[in-house]
């Protein structure tokens, strides 16, 4: 078989820069989205299943001065801005977020790379935050703007459609394993979307922007990794 397959790499490389072929390959994403979608509930685990040292996904603590200053103050100056296509803009400090009803979920984080880990997450349901700001009729997506960047001018961001954002397990997590989030794991607020791959669960969220389309944000694909070729629909 290896003889039959040898050269798969070189042959496929000829097609890597073929725009039409690459566009053809993306035809699978809407099929996957239609087949799987956002249905059901991610499995919830028991305390004993939790990984006490939860593997850090993606980048580690942002090095920029804005984040470092906030972290040094214990995030006293932090405000989660929720704006865009909303009736009532919101700015939530940590006290306000902790004062809202808290959900705890012990769910598995499935990384696109193939590994997975189980964490105990507590925080505010994203749906509750959306209810507080009242999205307008033209709002279709929630875009999550984060406080980290890749050092090459690309800020991390992610997006969910409002159906995904209102999923009962979509969480703005404040705590991991019974302690406030530490900087590596996205302090002070990160997203948890256990029905999709880990890159959807953006860390260090500063702002949630409700939009009708994300075509004009960064490279227009709806997220940092999406702009680099990963699927926007990350349920598979």
């Amino acid at each position: 078989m290896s003889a039959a397959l040898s050269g798969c790499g070189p042959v496929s490389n000829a097609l890597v820069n073929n725009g039409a072929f690459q566009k053809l390959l993306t035809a699978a994403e809407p099929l996957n989205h239609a087949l799987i979608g956002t249905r059901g509930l991610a499995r919830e685990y028991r305390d004993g299943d939790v990984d006490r040292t939860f593997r850090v996904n993606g980048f580690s603590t942002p090095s920029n001065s804005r984040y470092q200053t906030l972290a040094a103050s214990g995030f006293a100056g932090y405000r989660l801005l929720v704006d865009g296509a909303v009736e009532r803009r919101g700015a939530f400090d940590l006290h306000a977020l902790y004062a809202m009803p808290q959900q705890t979920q012990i769910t598995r984080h499935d990384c696109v790379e193939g590994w997975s880990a189980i964490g105990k997450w507590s925080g505010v349901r994203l749906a509750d935050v959306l209810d507080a700001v009242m999205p307008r009729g033209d709002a279709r997506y929630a875009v999550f703007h984060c406080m980290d960047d890749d050092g090459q001018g690309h800020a991390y961001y992610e997006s969910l459609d409002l159906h995904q954002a209102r999923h009962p397990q979509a969480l703005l997590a404040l705590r991991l394993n019974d302690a406030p989030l530490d900087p590596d794991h996205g302090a002070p607020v990160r997203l948890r979307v256990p029905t999709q791959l880990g890159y959807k669960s953006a860390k260090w969220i500063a702002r949630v922007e409700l939009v009708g389309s994300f075509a004009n944000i960064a490279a227009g694909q709806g997220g940092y990794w999406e702009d680099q070729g990963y699927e926007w629909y990350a349920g598979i």
Partner: protein
Amino acid sequence: MSAPPKTFLYRYSWLTRASHWLWVLAFAVLVSSGLQIFNASPNLDASDKSDPARRVLAIGSPADGIGTTTVFGRTFTTTGLLGWTDDGMGDRGAHAFPAWLTIPGFQDLSGGRRWHFFFAWIAAFCWLAWIVSTARRGTLRQMILLPSDLPKLWPMQAYYFKLRKEPPPHGLYNPLQKAAYTTIGFIVAPLVVLTGLALSPGIDAIAQPLTAVLGGRQFARLWHFTGMLLLLGFFAIHVFQVATQNVVNQMRSMITGWYQTNET
């Protein structure tokens, strides 16, 4: 003194032939892009979440220039073949499977995923086309192993071992062929699809019992890989048999549809 006229049977419909060859292409792409996806996390654990204590396979590079493969706790040095291999850009690096075996032919997880999902749909449609085309021609029923075939399995094997002069009476396909087609077409191939789906968080949310019965997400990844190896094994035997038994006639029939029935 002329040879008796050749007689031909129209054995495979165009749909069977087209889906067969498209399936060959799709399978090659699925294996290669699957190895690309594997390379992003080159471990297989018999567990739900990642768990080094239940690691069945680990391909890695403990130091520059060294590749190792650990199977059930036994470590082998596999430099150049696995672990420390061709990176597809003129150098070697810490890649589990070498870049010449993966699609794309360099480290590219998102690219591998796009190829994999697209050709997974192609393969699924090929499977459906095969079911439809063979069912329509009535050959599907002749390919499925029935309880009445079970007592003929050993006599057929005995014939191949030259312990019997004649094969047991059978239809278009002999009992061993039926067993192979039934196992691969109706058990292994569907399981490979199901195990692939089961390791997706979106499917796990819809069908928790599916992922659970497989032992969890990482276990599903292990089953998916194992299923791939079984399909590769079938492929190897299948190609060997075609190559050693009337290869011209067999290839002609799968290309043109016509099979010579009185070949000497």
